[in-house]
């Protein structure tokens, strides 16, 4: 009970879930073999749209966040149509450039308050807390205060959003669209020759990734009260990429695992905080050398399933190593 009522842990749990959603966003674009470094840019569009709608136009939060996602999607149309025709490296650089352009524009616009960023964004936790008070639990319930209850509900809501996206992605993988994605990832040309409209599917993956990133941005904005252009710079894009690289980009659980590890690790290793970026950098190189498919791959999942169905979990300790 102590764990769930401690605001520090609650905060970390929220960040883990938001990063997991971001992990799904990069998984979606990577599932067609496209490396997009623009997810931080889409995230910032979602975050700023949602925050501005609530602050300036008085939108309710539950409406502004999806609108933020749609805004990111709209931007993906503008940027995606020329760039998805490009091959891997061109796409990576073009999306990287897109992220930079978005950052500079946000830095210079008046409505986004430039380098100072937006503060006083209505928080989901506080508004839920108000609802709870209005329902007559002003002194809290279940031994928790109103604030703790509010935070707890936020975690539940975030988990539900995450669960929805995971479910969606898994259903997608088994559908005609998912199969097309996998075919494009395995061999672009062979897929095209087999009659798959590769451009359309790549664009679709790009859209979906942007939408999910926009939603994650909106959620992040309404949890932290404050957003600034620095939150969505190049380093953010690389961090999102790391989730997929560390966890594994072939299965949806990979980026989820990556985001959980990479969000909780800095909290555990507080003393090594100054070396955090250095460790991240070295980790990318080491992963690429020894296990480019990430910690979790399709074989790992299959092995685990076999082990579990034979009810011998004790032997399943070191599977991650053996599969490579």
């Amino acid at each position, binding site marked *: 009970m102590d764990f769930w009522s401690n605001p520090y842990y609650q905060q970390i749990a929220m960040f883990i879930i938001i990063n997991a959603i971001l992990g799904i966003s990069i998984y979606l674009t990577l599932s067609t073999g496209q490396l997009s470094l623009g997810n931080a840019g889409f995230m910032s569009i979602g975050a700023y749209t949602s925050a501005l709608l609530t602050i300036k136009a008085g939108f309710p939060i539950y409406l502004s966040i999806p609108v933020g996602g749609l805004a990111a999607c709209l931007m993906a149309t503008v*940027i995606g149509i*020329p760039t998805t025709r*490009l091959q891997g490296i*061109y796409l990576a650089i*073009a999306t990287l*450039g897109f992220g930079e352009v978005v950052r500079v524009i946000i830095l210079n616009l008046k409505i986004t308050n430039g380098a100072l960023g937006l503060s006083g964004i209505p928080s989901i936790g506080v508004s839920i807390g108000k609802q709870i008070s209005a329902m007559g639990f002003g002194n809290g319930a279940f031994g928790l205060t109103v604030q703790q209850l509010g935070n707890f509900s936020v975690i539940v809501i975030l988990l539900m959003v995450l669960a929805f996206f995971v479910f969606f992605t898994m259903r997608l993988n088994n559908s005609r669209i998912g199969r097309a994605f996998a075919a494009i990832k395995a061999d672009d040309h062979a897929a095209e020759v087999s009659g798959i409209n590769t451009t359309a599917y790549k664009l679709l993956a790009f859209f979906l990734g942007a939408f999910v990133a926009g939603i994650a941005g909106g959620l992040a904005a309404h949890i932290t009260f404050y957003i600034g252009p620095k939150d969505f710079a190049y380093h953010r894009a690389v961090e999102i990429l790391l989730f997929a690289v560390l966890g594994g980009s072939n299965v949806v659980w990979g980026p989820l695992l990556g985001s959980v590890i990479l969000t909780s690790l800095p909290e555990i290793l507080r003393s090594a905080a100054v070396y955090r970026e250095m460790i991240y950098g070295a980790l990318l190189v080491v992963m*690429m050398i020894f296990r480019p498919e990430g910690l979790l791959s399709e074989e790992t999942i299959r092995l685990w399933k076999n082990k579990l169905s034979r009810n011998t979990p004790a032997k399943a300790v070191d599977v991650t190593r053996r599969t490579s």
Partner: protein
Amino acid sequence: MFWQQVVNGVTLGSTYALIALGYTLIFGVLNIVNMAHGEIFMFGAFAGLVLATKFNLNIFLAMAGAMLAGAVLGYLMERLALRPLRRRASSHLAPLISTIGVAIFLESLALRLFGPQAQSFPPVFPGGLLDFGMFKISYVQIMILAISFGLMLVLRFGLAKTRLGKSIRTTAENIETAGLLGINTGKIIVFTVMLASGLGAVAGVLVGLAFNAVEPTMGVTMGFKGLAVLILGGLGNITGAMVGGLILGVAEVFTVAYGASSYRDAVAFGLIIFLLFLRPQGLFGSQEQQGGR
């Protein structure tokens, strides 16, 4: 006013061209975009700065030292982060991600070693200025122009005429055929990475002199500009990198001069996103060379 801006733009553009050449050389031979090039550039600038301030070396010697430091960094990167990947023959995204890792590592290392604040070179040729009436040009600008165009000419000539240059071009054309023809492609790759990194480091010192500021974050910003030039000129195209650099330099200076100074950093990528609509292979790229196809 106009001609003054052109001079400033060409000076700035020549340094961009030098950075972009590093990207292009590595792309040509290895078919990867070296995302750590900007950080090697930044380390070169700091190496030059330390040599010039702590050891009181002449600026030209400091530049040579920086070039050496850049080459050493390039060697280490090739050895530790690129060669192991080539052995495994993994996907084409792996080296890109691996060099991003090197970039993050180097940037945060520079933050630890040199601190976050901008530092400046001791004044070179203080007050030296030539006045042509239509425009003025400082001795520092002349030096930047002379060194970067000099290096570009040497490189151009070296690649076209010397044995080593021909080996590099053969390796870039087709690495397997080059190996069959008796070229030690492993050595050529190492040499090319070192050459590109050395050029990047010299560009670092020149940019440090031009802006009179050297800081750890300059690697990312200038690295991005180099990438933009790379796309602008066409991947793996030497002429494209040179011309693209000059175009970007002039475009940026004019953006600043005519009002939109705060959008300066967006110009580069605005330019390439626009270009990608019209000519995805870049200004000088050929159709079939597109993105490692």
